[in-house]
Structure formats: structure tokens, C-alpha cells
């Protein structure tokens, strides 16, 4: 996983840092207010519970605050989304390591599909839970590329620019992520169907 809060190689001048700090202090509240909902949605969608999402939300903003003091930020939205995705995946992975839980149906949330019946809703909740587990099992960059592509709907070029990789590399990582997710999700679904 890429460490996002590292100090850059070219240290900015003192005056530049001071000016950036002054600008940042003035804008920080506005930045939090403007991009907070998107970051919250990202964290909550990937983590699935409010406590983790809140922690991840705070971590994301603190990390971005520190980053913005070290270097010029072109787009706070994309940086926040990327950091939030990365942090959420880290948290998913940690959660998976800490407790190798199995689906027990208690973590069900509401699925926004009014036509679905209770059994379908339960099935979808389980699928979501398994997807989160599977994302925790993926490599850092693969999971990140997958989330940015399917949940943030970024293009290959945008993903490549955000992660500092080539467009073709982004495509390869996405393909690998899909293959791994399929490999993880499919046997679980088959065994479940056979149990039923």
C-alpha cells in the first residue's frame, strides 16, 4: 500500500509553506464541508459500519491536511477520495486479519431496492459482505484500482494519474482484481447454493 503521508523529496521553501498554511487554514472548513459527504460515502460503502467509517473519515482528513502542508494539492476531491479508498481498504484488511468471521446475517444493512424480497435482500447483503472480505484479500493497488473504477467511476487515465502508474498498468491491475474477486466470490456462492 502506498504511504500517502510521506514528506516529498523537494522540500518547499519556508515562505511557500507559510503561505500554503495560511490559505489552508482559511479553506479547511470549506474543504471539509464540500468534500466531506463524498468521503463519508466512500468510507461507509467500503467499510459497512458507521464507527469504522467515522474513524476512516477522520484519518483521511488528517492525512490530507498533513499532505497539503507538504506539497501543492491540485484537486482536494480526488486526493481525498484516493486516501479514503486506500484507508478503507487498509481497515478492511486489518479487520479481516483480526477476526476471520463468517457471514451470520447480523451485519445486514438496508439495500436500496424496494422490489427485492427479504430473501433477495439477505442474499445481496451476504454478497456485499463477501465482496468486502474479498477486497481485503486483494493486493493494495489492485483493490484501490477496483474501487476507484467501480465505486468512484474514474476512467483508466484518471486512475493512472491518481496512482502514478501507466494507463495499461491500471488496466492490468483491474483485470487481476476482477479475476481474483471472481475466484473468491464464485466458490462461496456455489457452496452456498449446494447447501441450500
Amino acid at each position: 500500500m502506498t504511504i500517502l503521508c510521506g514528506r516529498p523529496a523537494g522540500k518547499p521553501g519556508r515562505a511557500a509553506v507559510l503561505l500554503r498554511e495560511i490559505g489552508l487554514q482559511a479553506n479547511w472548513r470549506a474543504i471539509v464541508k464540500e468534500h466531506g459527504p463524498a468521503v463519508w460515502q466512500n468510507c461507509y460503502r467500503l467499510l459497512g459500519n458507521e464507527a469504522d467509517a467515522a474513524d476512516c473519515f477522520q484519518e483521511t482528513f488528517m492525512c490530507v491536511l498533513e499532505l497539503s502542508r507538504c506539497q501543492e494539492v491540485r484537486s482536494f476531491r480526488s486526493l481525498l477520495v484516493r486516501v479514503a479508498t486506500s484507508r478503507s481498504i487498509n481497515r478492511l484488511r486489518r479487520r479481516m486479519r483480526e477476526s476471520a468471521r463468517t457471514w451470520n446475517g447480523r451485519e445486514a444493512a438496508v439495500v436500496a431496492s424496494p422490489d427485492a424480497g427479504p430473501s433477495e435482500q439477505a442474499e445481496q447483503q451476504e454478497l456485499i459482505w463477501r465482496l468486502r472480505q474479498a477486497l481485503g484479500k486483494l493486493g493494495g493497488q489492485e483493490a484501490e484500482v477496483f474501487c476507484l473504477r467501480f465505486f468512484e467511476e474514474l476512467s483508466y487515465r484518471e486512475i493512472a494519474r491518481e496512482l502514478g502508474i501507466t494507463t495499461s498498468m491500471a488496466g492490468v491491475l483491474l483485470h487481476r482484481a476482477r479475476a481474483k474477486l471472481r475466484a473468491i466470490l464464485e466458490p462461496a456462492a456455489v457452496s452456498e447454493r449446494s447447501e441450500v
Partner: protein
Amino acid sequence: MSKQKDIVDKAVDALRNEEVPSGPPEELLAAVTSQGAQWERAAASVRGRLRLIRVGRFAAAAVLLIAAGYGVGHFFRPGPPSVKQLQEALEPALLSSLEPVIRDRLAIELSEQWALALAANNAELREEMKGMGLGVLAASGTLTNQRLGELIEAVNRAQSYDRRWVTAALEQIELNRVADTKQLASGLQTLALHTEDQLEQTMQVVADFCARRQTDNGFGDVEQ
């Protein structure tokens, strides 16, 4: 394969469609905002501390270096040197190192002084030449004027002389003309007198001749 694809897409769709509570909660937003301010204050204090530590380190290093330098200097301090030895030791080195430098500097200074003196002399000479030239020009102007005056006077004199001479010549010519006229008049009078005399003589001769012819030829002829 299509099933496998479907399950990933299905899972993604399900995750996308999962209802996310609207948020973030206000208290979380406030916490993040205030944490930003706190973090800024903490970072400022840490920066101050770091600066103090850095300055302290530099000061300590400087003190250590000075102490070490003093100790080393004190330890390796030589005894008081003999002036003669020092002179003998330094003389050849100073001679070899300083002599060419002094010579060069002397040559440069001399050339500079020469250049300055030459420049000053040049300026003086130029001024003198200028004054002299002006004097010569003034004197030659006066002399030329004098000579020109003299020349004009001589020309005037020569012109008046010529004019007088011409006047005298004209008077002489007039006198000659008057004399010639008088002479011509007297000559003409003489000629007229002579001519009258000759004419009278000729008439006398003719009369004599006629009379003789009459005498020679008779009365008839004389009547004819």
C-alpha cells in the same frame, strides 16, 4: 465465465445500491474541523520545539568545537621562537615568494606613474601649443592686416598716379589736337591763298593766251 462475471458485477451493483446513511454526522464534521485547527497548533508548537532543539544542537556543537580547538591549540602550542632562527627560516621563502611579486607590483606602479606623468605632460603641452597657436594666429592676423593696409595704400597711390598720368596725357593730347587744328587751319588758309594766287595767275595766263590768239588771228577772229 459469464456467471463469474455476473457475480462480480452483481456484488458491485449490490454494494453501489446499498443505502448509505446521509452524512457525515455534524459532530464528526466539527471534530475534523477542530482537529485541523488543533493539528495546526500542535504542528506549530512542534516546529518551534524542533527549531529550538536544532538551535540548541548547533550551539552545543559550536561550543564543543571551540573547546576542542582550544584544547588542541593549547596542547600543541610551540615554545617561544628564536627571532634569528625565524628570520633565517623565513628569509629564503619570503625572498622567493615576495621578490617577484614586489617586482611585478613595482613595475606596475612605475608604469602607472609614468603613464600619469605622461598624461599630465601631454595635457600641459597641449595647452601650451594651443596658447601658442592662438598667439601666432593673432600676430599673423595683425601683420596681415597691416600688410593689406599697406598694399591697399600702394594700390590707391598707384591708381592716383596713373589717373594723374592719364589726365596729363589727355591734356597733352588735347593740346596737340588744338595745335594740330591751328596748324591745319593756317595750312588751309595758306593753301587757299596760294590757290587764289594760282587761280588769278591761271586766269591771267588764260586771258593773256586769249589775247594772244586774238592778235594772231585778226579782228574777225577776235570777234568770233
